[in-house]
């Protein structure tokens, strides 16, 4: 009851989704679209679940008087405010609506800036990690340097063959390696997917009973 039903549902849903790929018949395709919309809806509900846990966690911190509980307030206020703007402001998606302004001027800048931290980290990583300790490490280092040079105008100035070398590295060794990894990864994914459908791999159910 507690494990059989979910496993059965898992198998049926999986089997249908795998098979529909080969059947262009509208009855099947429409059912597929319906099921897909269900999965997306489930995702949305699951997201709501996350928000609930988020709220619980921060309430916890505030109740337990954690040192940085002030920041928990920041999170909660941001969350509630955004929901308010979204649901109680008509046409919240329109450009210029408070909801959209908050998105564009608070969320986007912070996320974009966090993303751009990578520019600094990629440099520090290169400095400390690119050591010609072994043959492999040396090759990695050399490939990286050539490609870096080949990407910028100054590379062409240093030597006109650098861009060509860059393309070659990308199109031959890089391609071969990527394809190898892709095939292996692909097989691993399919095997795991099959095991999930057959209920051999049930980590997603968690443990207990």
């Amino acid at each position: 009851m507690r494990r059989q039903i979910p496993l059965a549902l898992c198998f049926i849903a999986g089997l249908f989704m795998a098979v529909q790929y080969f059947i262009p018949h509208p009855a099947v395709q429409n059912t597929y679209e319906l099921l897909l919309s269900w999965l997306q809806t489930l995702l949305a509900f699951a997201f709501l679940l996350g928000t609930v846990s988020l709220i619980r966690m921060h309430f916890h911190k505030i109740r337990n008087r954690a040192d940085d509980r002030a920041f928990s307030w920041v999170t909660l206020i941001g969350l509630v405010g955004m929901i308010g703007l979204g649901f109680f402001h008509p046409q919240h998606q329109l450009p210029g609506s408070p909801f959209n302004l908050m998105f564009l001027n608070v969320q986007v800048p912070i996320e974009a800036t966090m993303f751009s931290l990578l520019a600094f980290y990629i440099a520090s990583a290169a400095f400390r990690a690119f050591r010609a300790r072994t043959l492999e490490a040396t090759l990695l280092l050399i490939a990286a340097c050539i490609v870096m040079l080949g990407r910028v105008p100054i590379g062409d100035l240093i030597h006109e063959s650098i861009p060509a070398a860059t393309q070659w590295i990308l199109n031959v060794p890089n391609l071969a390696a990527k394809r190898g990894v892709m095939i292996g990864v692909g097989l691993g994914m399919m095997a795991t997917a099959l095991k999930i459908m057959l209920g051999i791999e049930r980590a997603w159910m968690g443990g207990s009973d």
Partner: protein
Amino acid sequence: MGTLIWTTIGAILTLSVYSFLYKDNPFYKFAEHLVVGISAGYYLVIYYYNFIDPNVVTPVFQLRLGDQAIGFGSGAWWLALIPGLLGLLLYTRFFPRVAWVARWSLGIYVGGYAGLGISPVMQARVIEQIGANALPLTSVTNVLIVVGLLGTLAYFFFSMKHKGILGALARVGIVFLMVGFGASFGYTVMSRISLLIGRVSFLLHDWLQVV
């Protein structure tokens, strides 16, 4: 004026995040906690209006599924109850005694996506690779690609110890892998820096308007 205020807010938050490069500090903490809250709220609204509302709420309250494609005859509004129900089941996990019921929805979700993945993965990652790698060994390039591919696959072959020919091949594979990694690393630098340039130009051009 309004825009200036908004830009200033964006700029202050931008600087707060960059302050993390020096060390963790209250400004960063503020930005970090703020974006967690804001983004949660944002996605909640977006998900509701894009999935829950059209797939559950609207059809159920109007007692019909509009032009929503349905396998077994249109107008079956009650079908919209199913995703709603499955969605609500997820919340049983807050009630330990019935928590296991959440697995029903989870089963459909995990199984559905597992099945959905299989065929496209087989197509994109295996079948098309076979087509692309069926290369006659007539040029140095082809030989290198084939050797590199064999080596990489050998490296990922777990059924035997890496000794003898397999060991040698695996060694070749690791070499190709490392060159590939180096290339992608160097290749990514540019786009990461572009992001930084974007932020800097936001600060100097859009906000301070000094350039």
